[in-house]
């Protein structure tokens, strides 16, 4: 599997053949606190880069999750509907959120590398 890429909005993506897997980062799940529910997008729906793709609710907050690239949702992690805490416990593995078929794979190259993302969250404490 390819290396992970990151967005400024704290999503990670990982290429796997022609599709990409998307989730939120360790930093993001920590900021959100205990997650209690997630609204998953419909399989087959299309989004443009930076469109709001889904909403994650924690006990006291509600956060938009943005689509990292133009593409179509081909699979969603239905497990999260019953077990949203997987996002907190395992944000990079069992807490994956959607799989997308990207329209413009070049967009992935312009996302942040791990070093760039680490620098971003090292700096900015909201």
């Amino acid at each position: 599997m390819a290396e992970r890429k990151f967005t400024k909005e704290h999503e990670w993506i990982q290429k796997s053949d022609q599709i990409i897997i998307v989730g939120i980062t360790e930093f993001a799940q920590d900021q959100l606190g205990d997650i209690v529910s997630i609204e998953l997008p419909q399989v087959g729906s299309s989004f443009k880069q930076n469109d709001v793709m889904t909403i994650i609710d924690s006990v006291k907050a509600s956060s938009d999750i943005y689509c990292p690239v133009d593409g179509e949702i081909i699979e969603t992690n239905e497990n999260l509907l019953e077990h949203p805490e997987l996002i907190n416990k395992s944000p990079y593995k069992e807490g994956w959120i959607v799989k997308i078929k990207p329209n413009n794979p070049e967009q992935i190259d312009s996302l942040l590398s791990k070093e760039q993302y680490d620098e971003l969250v090292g700096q900015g404490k909201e």
Partner: protein
Amino acid sequence: MKLIFDYNQSNTKHTPDEEKDVDLPEELKRSSLLLPDVNEVQVIRHYTELSKKNYGIDTNFYPLGSCTMKYNPRVNEDLAKLPGFSNLHPHMPASHAQGALQVIWELEGDLKEITGMDAFSLQPAAGSQCELLGVMIAKKYFAEKNENRTKIIIPDSAHGTNPATASMCKFQTVTILSDDRGNMDLDEFKKAIGPDVALVMITNPNTLGLYEENLSEIKDLAHEKGALMYCDGANMNALLGISKPADQGFDMIHLNLHKTFSTPHGGGGPGGGALGVKSFLEDYLPVPRIKKENAQFVFDSNQEKSVGKLHSFYGNFGIIVRALSYIRSWGSDIHKISQIAVLNANYLFTLLKEDFDVPYDRRCAHEFVISAKNFGEKSTANIAKRITDYGFHAPTIYFPLIVKEALMIEPTETESKETLDEFANVLKTIIKELKEDPEVVKNAPHTIPGRLDEVKAARQLNLRWVPHES
């Protein structure tokens, strides 16, 4: 802990027995009804016990900002229960409900005088329903003028209902930052106002407890571009008899009868909403209107431009009775309410300034915001829980969102200097505890049950009693 479903007693008889079963086809009949049978003595004990586990204004001070938890006059409860009011059927023709229509009409009149608006509707059941009405009126008003306005401007300190209402009606919310004096940033506002803005929704004094100093320019700019000015009147307790929102330049205002006008909160409701408008918007108000024709009060549903109806009948009439009684008891002395509300807030603010971080060091109105950010993350939550151990209710916390570790405090005019001194001392004591014995604050409240697991409540949903299959 016992739920009412854990009882199984013989019932008290409240109405004469009806032994005969109903004669309905089987496909429409109910097969089993798993309600408990509880004796009246058990019911009284069960709910009396529950009431003792509950805090109310009758118990002690509620320093909650933006809620106006003032004393609920008991005489108003008795008046709402007069048989001529409480036993009146809403389908009663106007001829046999003249007293009720007069109550509605008189409250509308008093609120017009207090706010300077030209017409009121008392149909909304709460402040947020008023906002819905106000936004719908704006939508219809501009549609009839053929003006395509898609935006609503709000400050970043706005109540959550403002953007939620805008969204419901498919408007885009444009949020303006507050400046360092806590006012809506005028430069940012100038950039945002334009002919595509339908409404500017402002709470004044705002949720920081501060009077909007740029209001006059904001109003002029908004009107210049043809936008309407909407006042979220949740903070009217600062303005009674002192300033009228209509004079401030607003075209619409909503009032919460359960805040400024003393009707009881009842644990979360019922509330009562009142939407006031300038005359050019009067025709859009919901029907039926109450009018006076030749000394008779009548229903008038003949309003073509009306947005429609928001309530099954005429609004929360029982709440309207209480609000009218309250206003009549104060009459021309009503300014005393706001004067003392403002005095109480400034007094408590002055006492607490030395211990807390003060985001906006200005004269406050009837409420103020301080911050516990110097004591570390989550201190506000811990302080709030610790306050409970001292017999007080916590203030509003983490709102408005623009202040970190915010505590919003509104004393109201019915709290004495003694109570305020006591409350200030409790807060000062807790600050000391944070330095000398932080665990006692972090583990608060020391009640049973203690701090309840809200994550578990949201993840392992238990929202009702489930009968055991027998």
